C-alpha cells in the first residue's frame, strides 16, 4: 500500500552528517484557528437555521475534502514521503503536520454534524426509509475510521510534532511515527472508497 523507508538507528539524520536543520514551526497554527472558528460558527448557524442548502454544502464539501485528502495522503503523498531523505521528511513534516492537525478534525466535525442534520431533514434516519441499511453501514465505516484516526493517526501526528520541537529530535522515533501516520492514513483512505460507494448509492 505504502512504502516507507526505514530509518537506521544511529545514522545521522542529515544527508551529510549532523542533525538536519529544523524550520521554526507552530504545533497548532494560531492563524488557522480563526478559520476553524469561522467554519464552526457557520455550521452552528446552518444547523440552528435549518438551512438545507448550507447543510448540504457543509456535508458535501467537508465529506469530499475529507475523502479526497485521506486518499491523496494515503496513496500519493505517503509513498512519496517514504522515499524522501530524512532531512526532507522532517522539513515536509514541520510544514504539513500542523495544518493536518487543524484541518482534519474540522472537516470531520462539519461533515458528520451537517450530514446527521441533513439525514434528519430528509427523513433518512427513520428505520422505515428503504435505504436505512446503507446509512447504518456508513455509520459503521465512519466509526472504524474514527477509531483508527483518533486512536492511532492523530497521536502519531502529535508525537512527531513534539519530537521535532526537541533540541535533538530522534530520527528513528520520527521514522516509526511517520510510518504509523502514513499507514493509518492509507487504511482510512481505503475505507473512504466504501464511503464513496455508500454515499453515491444513497444519493442515487
Amino acid at each position, binding site marked *: 500500500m505504502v512504502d516507507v523507508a526505514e530509518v537506521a538507528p544511529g545514522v545521522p539524520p542529515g544527508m551529510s552528517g549532523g542533525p538536519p536543520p529544523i524550520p521554526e514551526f507552530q504545533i497548532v497554527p494560531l492563524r488557522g484557528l480563526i478559520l476553524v472558528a469561522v467554519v464552526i460558527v457557520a455550521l452552528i448557524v446552518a444547523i440552528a437555521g435549518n438551512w438545507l442548502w448550507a447543510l448540504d454544502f457543509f456535508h458535501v464539501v467537508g465529506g469530499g475534502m475529507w475523502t479526497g485528502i485521506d486518499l491523496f495522503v494515503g496513496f500519493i503523498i505517503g509513498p512519496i514521503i517514504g522515499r524522501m531523505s530524512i532531512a526532507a521528511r522532517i522539513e515536509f513534516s514541520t510544514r504539513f503536520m500542523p495544518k493536518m492537525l487543524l484541518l482534519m478534525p474540522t472537516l470531520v466535525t462539519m461533515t458528520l454534524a451537517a450530514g*446527521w442534520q441533513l439525514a434528519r431533514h430528509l427523513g433518512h434516519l427513520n*428505520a422505515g426509509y428503504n435505504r436505512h441499511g446503507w446509512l447504518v453501514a456508513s*455509520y459503521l465505516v465512519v*466509526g472504524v475510521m*474514527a477509531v483508527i484516526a483518533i*486512536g492511532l493517526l492523530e*497521536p502519531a501526528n*502529535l*508525537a512527531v510534532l513534539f519530537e521535532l520541537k526537541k533540541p535533538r529530535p530522534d530520527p528513528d522515533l520520527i521514522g516509526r511515527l511517520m510510518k504509523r501516520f502514513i499507514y493509518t492514513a492509507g487504511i482510512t483512505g481505503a475505507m473512504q472508497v466504501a464511503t464513496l460507494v455508500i454515499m453515491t448509492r444513497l444519493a442515487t
Partner: protein
Amino acid sequence: MSTTEERTLPPVGELAIATIGLIVIGGVYMAAHLPKHFSLVIPIIDLAVAVALVVTNVVLLSRIRSFAWRTFFLVGKWALAAYMVISGMLVYVFARDHTPAGPMAVLAGMLATFAVDIPMLFGFSVARFAAPDPPT
C-alpha cells in the same frame, strides 16, 4: 538517546483506544435506532465498561512515578478544549433534534467519556517520548 518509551509503561494507550471503540459501538448502535424508541440496556452497559476503562487508565497513570507530566498536561488541556467543542457540538445537534431524555443522557455520557479519554490518550502519546520531569 534513551526515551521514556523504552521504560515499561502501563497500557494506557491501548485502553484508551478500546474506550474509543466502545464509545463508537454505542454511538453507532444508538444512531442506527434513533429517532424511534429502543432499549437502552446495551448502550448503558457499553458506557459503563467505557467509564470503567477510563477510571482504570486514570489509576494506571497515577501510579507512574517518573513521567513527563508537564508535557502530558500541556497536550491534555488543549486536547480537552478541542474535544469539548466537538462533543458540545454533537450534544447540541442531538438536543436540537429533541432526542428523548433517556437516549440523550446516555449519549451525553458517551460524549463526556469521549472528551476525557481522548486528551488522556493524546497527552500520554506525546509525554511517553518526552524526558520525565525532574524530581521536586
